[in-house]
């Protein structure tokens, strides 16, 4: 029994630490992110530079800290956007059912079958690159999973007593859906949000790696991987650091999501 | 079976599921294990085949032709399964593998426990299928479980159980999931098997009507304890335990039309309530002071008739 809580604690610790790092970076980084130092290029990790320096002599740790801002920002906004529309769509599909539901679900299935990265690429090829379009593309990609989870929750709850009572009392559909049912379906949606966050981070990293996501001067771990790849023989830690942090934040949100899901399971 | 105790070890502690069960199953007999849901009858049956989950702890002895099942290694008991002891489960749709042809599922037993090969084995399976009352066995062999009716599926399950002529068959509520008309046929089939193939049967049920129909003797269980054991007609004519008496009263009879059905007041204790005295005491109308403190021992009342109650000799 106790074992299951482990996921939750690990997730919380990882995310909390990274979040702390991000908040700190808003006010302070060990070195200015753009400060170049010709003499200290490709320096290995040391007391001065815990994660070494890059090809311009910039401190990698500071750049990583700055990069966490983008990771959290993109994740948060994309998941919020996707979550908002996804929940809306899923609620409507689940509550009203019928042809509308069929149609929406076919659409969602088609979207899920399509490789996410391909969609994002198509999107930026049409609308251009940059952080804003990256967020929109990733947001759209996350709509189907929210829609699915919300829909099944609504399908389940719409048969429950309290919903029937509310209808009999004359409460409007809109209020029933969002004031009555939605709060009860919140748990799995939160789990989906956590998973969506990690998915968003991975997508942004891939897009930025390809040069089609977050553009300079906005920092991005994914783009750092692209920049560092050429120099890998000279300073492998410049490549290792962003990868580790991407993995950490994804792991963190995955564990968090799993932990919350386990918590729900046990309550039931 | 002597003094069988089964408990389950969980993160929250050990829970006794079955306590101090003793009974005998003779050759050619059909012994009924009857009681309400949760009284431990299924657990007892699974213990005989050592099919309980890993956190189960057994003590006591289960003597099978001179060998103690409780003390056996996994390898030893595995050899007995399917060949000497076999089991029939309640729901035939889920107890058969949905992706295997039904004939093959019977064949697997023969393949494992006999030396028969190829055509001989196929013929044996067909014969067994015919014996359990399945029509057109050669064709039926190649069907899948979902293509058969509930009654036919249960016959397949029975065929699997009797394939190797086991000495003991454990039937866990084999007719509960079936239509009433089919129930009668299956019961008759089991009786025939018992008579003609010489397999003893342990028949588990919560339905007294069925138990009376098929069993030669009956063990009544309550909350993990064996409370009364008697030959069938003896039990129905002269029940000597308050619980058994209560159960008898609760059976609807043909002349009880229009009268209120009797219900034993109170409810079955959960596995987490362990009382020092008699488990039935809270609901017993004959209970007195001693019942709360002390667990009654078995009182022998006659030939193979025992009851676990202080008042056993006096109840009518």
């Amino acid at each position, binding site marked *: 029994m106790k074992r299951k809580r482990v996921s939750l604690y690990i997730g919380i610790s990882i995310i909390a630490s990274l979040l702390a790092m991000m908040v700190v970076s808003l006010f302070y980084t060990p070195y200015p992110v753009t400060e170049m130092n010709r003499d200290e290029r490709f320096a290995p990790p040391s007391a001065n530079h815990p994660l070494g320096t890059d090809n311009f002599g910039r401190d990698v740790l500071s750049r990583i800290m700055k990069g966490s801002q983008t990771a959290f920002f993109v994740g948060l906004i994309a998941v919020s956007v996707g979550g908002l529309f996804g929940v809306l769509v899923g609620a409507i599909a689940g509550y009203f059912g019928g042809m509308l539901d069929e149609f929406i679900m076919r659409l969602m299935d088609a979207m899920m*079958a399509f*490789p*996410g990265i391909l969609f994002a690429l198509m999107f930026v090829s049409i609308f251009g690159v940059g952080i804003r379009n990256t967020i929109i593309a990733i947001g759209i990609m996350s709509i189907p999973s929210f829609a699915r989870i919300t829909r099944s929750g609504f399908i389940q709850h719409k048969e429950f007593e309290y919903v029937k009572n509310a209808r009999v009392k004359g409460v409007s559909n809109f209020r029933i859906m969002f004031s009555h049912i939605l709060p009860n379906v919140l748990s799995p949606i939160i789990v989906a949000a956590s998973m969506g966050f990690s998915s968003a981070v991975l997508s942004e*990293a891939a897009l930025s790696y390809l040069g089609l996501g977050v553009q300079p001067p906005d920092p991005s771990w994914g783009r750092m991987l692209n920049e560092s790849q050429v120099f890998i023989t000279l300073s492998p830690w410049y490549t290792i650091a962003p*990868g580790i942090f991407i993995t950490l934040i994804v792991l963190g949100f995955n564990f968090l999501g799993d932990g919350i899901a386990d918590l729900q399971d046990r309550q039931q | 079976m002597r003094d069988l105790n089964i408990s389950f070890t969980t993160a929250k502690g050990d829970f006794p599921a079955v306590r101090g069960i003793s009974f005998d199953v003779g050759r050619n007999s059909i012994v009924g294990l009857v009681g309400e849901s949760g009284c431990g009858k299924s657990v007892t049956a699974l213990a005989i085949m050592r099919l309980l989950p890993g956190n189960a702890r057994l003590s006591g002895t289960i003597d099978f032709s001179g060998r103690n099942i409780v003390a056996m290694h996994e390898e030893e008991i595995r050899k007995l399964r399917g060949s000497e002891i*076999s*089991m029939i489960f309640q729901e035939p749709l889920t107890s058969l*593998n949905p992706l295997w042809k039904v004939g093959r599922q019977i064949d697997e037993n023969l393949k494992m426990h006999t030396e028969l090969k190829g055509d001989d084995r196929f013929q044996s399976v067909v014969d067994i299928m015919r014996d359990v009352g399945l029509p057109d066995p050669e064709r039926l062999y190649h069907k899948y479980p979902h293509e058969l009716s509930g009654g036919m599926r249960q016959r397949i399950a029975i065929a699997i159980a009797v394939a190797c002529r086991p000495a003991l068959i454990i039937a866990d509520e084999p007719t509960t999931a079936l239509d009433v008309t089919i129930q009668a046929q299956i019961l008759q089939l089991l009786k025939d098997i018992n008579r003609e193939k010489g397999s003893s049967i342990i028949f588990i049920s919560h339905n007294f009507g069925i138990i009376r129909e098929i069993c030669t003797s009956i063990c009544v269980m309550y909350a993990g304890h064996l409370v009364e054991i008697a030959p069938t007609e003896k039990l129905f004519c002269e029940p000597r335990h308050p619980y058994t008496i209560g159960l008898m009263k609760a059976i609807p009879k043909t002349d009880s039309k229009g009268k209120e059905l009797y219900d034993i007041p109170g409810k079955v204790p959960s596995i987490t309530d362990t009382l020092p005295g008699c488990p039935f005491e809270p609901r017993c109308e004959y209970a007195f002071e001693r019942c709360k403190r002390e667990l009654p021992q078995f009182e022998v009342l006659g030939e193979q008739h025992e009851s676990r109650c202080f008042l056993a000799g006096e109840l009518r």
Partner: protein
Amino acid sequence: MYIYLRKLFAMLATVFLVSMITFITFEIIPGDPVLARLGVDADEAQIRALSEELGLDEPLYKRFFGWITGLFTGDLGQSIRYSRPVSELIFDRLPVTLSLALISMVLIVIIGVPLGILSARYGDRLPGISISIVSQIGMAVPSFWTGIILMYIFGLTLRWVSPGGYTPWSVDPVEAFKSLLLPAVAIALPSIATVIRYTRNTVMEQMKNDYVRLAFSKGLKMNAVLFRHVLKNALIPVITVLGMITANILGGSIVIEQVFTLPGVGRLLINAISVRDLPLVQGMVLYISLVIVVTNFLIDIVYTLIDPRIKLR
């Protein structure tokens, strides 16, 4: 028989739908491919000439029909950048991407499924838990990073394979395989983790079923029960997930081809997007979508072959 025809028909309908959507999507694009090619300072005459050459001045429906008929003849238009037919360009790169995808899929199945079963068998004990943890990490690591690291270790440091680049199968099969192995591993890793998780869950679910109890009651050993009875039942949901895995592999290959500089469809796509060579992008999106639709169709067919309960419907 009918069921197969119905599925085939559904697939073709989807194909049509996909092509239509792809076509329409690229029609609403702001920005002008002609200008992209000629530069902003091009004069009217040049723009008109190129537009005519590319057929961009035709009315919409005409172009759509042209597109559709082109699909049947294998003509997907002309690449603006390379001045060669799109289909030709794609075909050149197909072998690379397809081989990559195939090797990845094989790796995923032969590593993921057995580990998943192992993990389920030893469920709550050490091997089971450690496999779970490892697969969690496997899902979190970005595949292109894995690719970079692998290339660094095996390509640059140990020099077991050449770092990047590709040798065609026709020239030297062994070298070809070597150049595809690392990229395939990088692509496969996250999907292997997913399959392990999935397989573990379905196997553990199946183990709770009655027929498993019956199998034990016949005297079968754990291995026999697992592999003869449980496996087939558990694989059915796993096959469903293979459809999603295909999409992952194709998506993954787009990025990985970049990491290892493989001359595949993915890299062509990225280049095309950077220079806004829209006919090319359009063609490749269509190709990738078709691969997915066809693969899902095939998986569906495999389904009906394995599960006898489905045939009857």
